[in-house]
């Protein structure tokens, strides 16, 4: 630009002034003799030449600084005015008809041209001022820009530094995550070369470093210890392995020794082996059976040599039952999946079958069962099999009798040793038909079992004493008079075993007696002969068993039934005693707990009319003579002769009755049917004229009670 401007100025100057070839200089360098670099070669030549000649320099820029823009403006205005005036004059002249090229007009034109030149100069000056102003502004702007940039740079740097500072401040050195011992401990424990107290007292940085050093050293030490203890552990483990192997090798050896010692044990009757085996199996017993096993064993060893206990059943199944449930759960889930697949293929089982299965499941027995054998003196054995119903949590028992003597031959005794009813009412009212566990009621409702009695024959009887022996105690519907005992099984064991033995013996004795009774022989042992006179004429004609229904239908037993002395669990018999034309029917109620409970006789006499204990006071007296005097009639302990003695006494009483009956009934004279043979002091006594039924030994006469 500067060279262009220079060229223009140069041209102007030459044209307008037409005189001296003047050169114009570049900008601003008028004072100095230096030449701007941008000047063209031509100008440089001219400048050089000019310099040598003392040329006058016309520098418009310099002139510009000296002029006042205000004046220039005023000049401009006046020039414009004068030009306008000139034009107006020219116009006037031309209008007045002046010719082309007239002097005045030419003069005016020349003046106008001068004004134009002034205007041009002014224009130039304005342009130059503008340019100058722009350049200045530009420079200032550039300076400002540079400063601005510097400012920006500095700001950025500041920010950057601040960030760095922030980062540095936030920097968490890993050393802070290491837990160090407290300062006091450190100062106390660390050796001096590490803790360097003189340095670290004041300088926290040094303190931390020292602490880290200490920590490191400690850790190294502990790592050493750890390694060494690992090594020793390895050694010990190896040692254990060796010893285990050794022990393992001992086991077969011991076993062999035990086998070899079996005969010795048998010989010395110290059956350790058997006991141990039993104890092994006993581990798998369910808790109630285990209690029973332990107590029965203990009782057998301590008090009763004739009691033996054994366990029977499938041990593997029992083990399977006690396996932990996780295994079975996995199995279940698998089997469930399988089952579902199968079910889609075939029809689902009916509801009835499902219910049946549920019932079977509920009534399931534990695979192991306990067998207790009670031997009696005469060689017969009572076998008791105890089962545990797992879901119902009750014990049941089944019985079996192996008698030493042959038991056939007594028809009426069929029920006596019936395993179903053998242990009925061992304790009063313990029928064993219903489950003693009240919780079972709810379980039964779920699967539709009405009573447990239906399953008793299959599963065994859940007597209360069985539960007590197994240590199971259930709250009963009726409030108990006594509280619960802690050692339930032990306290019941002796009593129950005695009762069981007694029950077996009494039943076997009855069995034998019944055999004899059916042959019309009343077996009276020698110890009891003194109760009866030597000659008894009335004889037992028949001895049969009756059912409960048949018994209740007899008319002469209603008073017994009304008094509540008859239960379904009792056994009923009919004895017929005859003498001549007289026939005495005796209905006997035998309680299962014979001989603890006396059999009850009810009499009806058929002789010249029918009389019963209700209508005839003497028959009533006979009933009381037979029923009431148990202490006389039971004979030697354990009182197993009670029934036969009662029957014999009945025969004796009938004899007395018939012989002392006065012969007045049908007015017939003639010999008495029953001659008086018994010796009686008085044949009648009291307002109701009772006969003498009491036999006095050894005088042998009858008297009244």
């Amino acid at each position, binding site marked *: 630009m500067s060279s262009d401007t220079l060229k223009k100025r140069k041209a102007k100057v030459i044209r307008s002034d037409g005189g001296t070839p003047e050169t114009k200089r570049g900008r601003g360098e008028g004072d100095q003799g230096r030449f701007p670099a941008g000047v063209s070669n031509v100008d440089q030549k001219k400048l050089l030449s000019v310099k040598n000649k003392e040329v006058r320099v016309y520098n418009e820029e310099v002139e510009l600084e000296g002029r006042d823009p205000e004046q220039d403006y005023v000049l401009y205005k006046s020039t414009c005015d004068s030009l306008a005036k000139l034009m107006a004059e020219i116009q006037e002249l031309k209008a007045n008809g002046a010719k082309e090229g007239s002097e005045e007009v030419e003069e005016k034109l020349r003046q106008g041209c001068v004004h134009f030149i002034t205007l041009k100069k002014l224009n130039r000056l304005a342009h130059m001022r503008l340019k100058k102003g722009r350049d200045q502004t530009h420079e200032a702007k550039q300076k400002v820009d540079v400063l601005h940039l510097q400012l920006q740079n500095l700001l950025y740097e500041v920010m950057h530094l601040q960030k760095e500072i922030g980062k540095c401040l936030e920097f968490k050195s890993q050393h802070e995550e290491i837990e160090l011992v407290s300062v006091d401990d450190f100062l106390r424990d660390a050796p001096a070369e590490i803790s360097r107290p003189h340095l670290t007292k004041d300088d926290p940085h040094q303190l931390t470093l020292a602490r880290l050093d200490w920590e490191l050293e400690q850790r190294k030490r502990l790592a050493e210890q750890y390694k060494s203890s690992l090594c020793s552990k390895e050694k010990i483990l190896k040692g254990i392995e060796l010893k285990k192997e050794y022990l393992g090798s001992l086991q077969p050896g011991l076993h062999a020794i035990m086998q070899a010692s079996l005969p010795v044990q048998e010989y010395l009757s110290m059956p350790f082996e058997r006991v141990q085996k039993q104890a092994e199996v006993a581990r798998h017993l369910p808790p109630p059976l285990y209690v029973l096993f332990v107590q029965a064993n203990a009782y057998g060893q301590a008090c009763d040599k004739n009691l033996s206990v054994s366990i029977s059943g499938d041990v593997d199944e029992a083990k399977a039952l006690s396996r932990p449930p996780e295994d079975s759960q996995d199995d279940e889930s698998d089997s469930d999946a399988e089952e579902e697949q199968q079910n889609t293929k075939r029809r689902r089982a009916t509801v009835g079958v499902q219910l049946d299965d549920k019932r079977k499941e509920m009534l399931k027995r534990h695979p192991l069962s306990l067998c207790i054998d009670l031997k009696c003196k005469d060689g017969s054995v009572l076998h008791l099999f105890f089962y545990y119903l797992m879901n119902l949590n009750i014990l049941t028992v089944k019985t079996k009798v192996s008698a030493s003597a042959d038991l056939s031959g007594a028809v009426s005794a069929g029920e006596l040793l019936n395993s179903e009813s053998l242990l009925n009412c061992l304790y009063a009212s313990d029928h064993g038909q219903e489950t003693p566990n009240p919780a079972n009621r709810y379980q039964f409702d779920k699967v539709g079992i009405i009573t447990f009695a239906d399953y008793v024959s299959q599963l065994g009887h859940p007597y209360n004493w069985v539960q007590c022996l197994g240590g199971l105690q259930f709250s009963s519907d009726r409030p108990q008079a006594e509280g619960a005992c802690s050692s339930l099984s032990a306290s019941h064991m002796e009593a129950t075993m005695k009762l069981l033995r007694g029950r077996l013996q009494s039943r076997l004795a009855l069995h034998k007696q019944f055999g004899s009774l059916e042959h019309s022989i009343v077996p009276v042992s020698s110890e009891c002969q003194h109760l009866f006179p030597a000659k008894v004429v009335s004889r037992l004609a028949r001895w049969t068993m009756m059912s409960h229904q048949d018994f209740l239908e007899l008319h002469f037993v209603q008073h017994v039934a009304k008094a509540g002395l008859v239960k379904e669990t009792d056994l009923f018999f009919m004895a017929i005693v005859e003498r001549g034309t007289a026939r005495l029917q005796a209905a006997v109620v035998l309680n299962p707990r014979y001989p603890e409970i006396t059999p009850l006789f009810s009499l009806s006499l058929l002789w010249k009319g029918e009389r019963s204990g209700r209508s005839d*006071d003497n028959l009533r007296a006979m009933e009381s003579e037979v029923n009431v005097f148990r202490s006389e009639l039971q004979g030697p302990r354990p009182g197993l002769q009670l029934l036969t003695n009662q029957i014999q006494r009945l025969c004796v009483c009938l004899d007395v009755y018939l012989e002392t009956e*006065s012969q*007045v009934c049908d007015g017939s004279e003639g010999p008495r049917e029953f001659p008086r043979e018994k010796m009686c002091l*008085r044949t*009648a*006594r009291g307002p109701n004229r009772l006969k003498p039924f009491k036999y006095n030994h050894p005088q042998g006469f009858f*008297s009244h009670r």
Partner: protein
Amino acid sequence: MSVFSQSFSPCGRFLAAGNNYGEIAIFSLSAALSPDATDLSQKPILTFTAHEGPVFALLSTDTHLLSAGNGEISAWSWVELTKRSTKAVWTRRPNYKSSLEIPEINAMIINPKDNSLIVGGGDNNIHIMDMETGTFKSVLQGHTDYIHCLALKEREGEILSGGEDGAVRIWDSRTRQAVHCIEVFKYEECARPQFGKWISCLATDSDWMRKLLVFLSWGGPDESQFHHNIFAVGEGPHVSHCLLGGSVKAQIPCTSPSLNTLALNLSSTEHRVMTAAGSSDKIDVFTNFSYRAFSLSF
């Protein structure tokens, strides 16, 4: 259990009954007959064992209850009994000869004229005891079998006794001699061979001077008479109303299968009842002679 004897207290509010176990039970009639009687009021207020053997006879004096057991007579104060004290005032035994068996005492009556107690029992004799001194003054012998019952004809001072031998003997109480002996079974119209000849019970009606009423109960041991009606109890479970001629007017059913004793409470106006008891533990109470009202339970 069989109830053999009954006796009302002198005030008429209590009934004593004796059974074959030797026990005596005292019942409160006023409680049992009151409108708000419960089951409990039909039980005895006191039961105690008086004797070893059965109590076949009970008799009430003005102050005491006399009971007869196996060969002994005990006296109890009514006042003490109502206070539930069971201590006997005295116990006496007649002199029995035989020692093999102690005879029972079947009947007791009191002769108010000379304040003596007349007992008859199993030794075939009648013993007379003075109530004041307690000694047995005399023995009337004559029966060949044991004595069932005694009766007294007050005006004539005669004692009547009926026994197992079928004879009714009349004794003079002053001279202690037998005056008469009637063997009833020998009279054809009175003979009852199918039942036996024994005389179970006697009663007299003092209005009739010479007539005595004698009953063989047909198996039955007791009777009582009231306004010319005769009530008899015996082997069947009923009280029979009979007329003097012998016809049976009515038979009222009772709870016991056979009855041993019948008693009328004449000493009290508000508790005028008839009670019957026998071979059960129930004592039937009749407020109206036609039906059984309720039963006391021994």
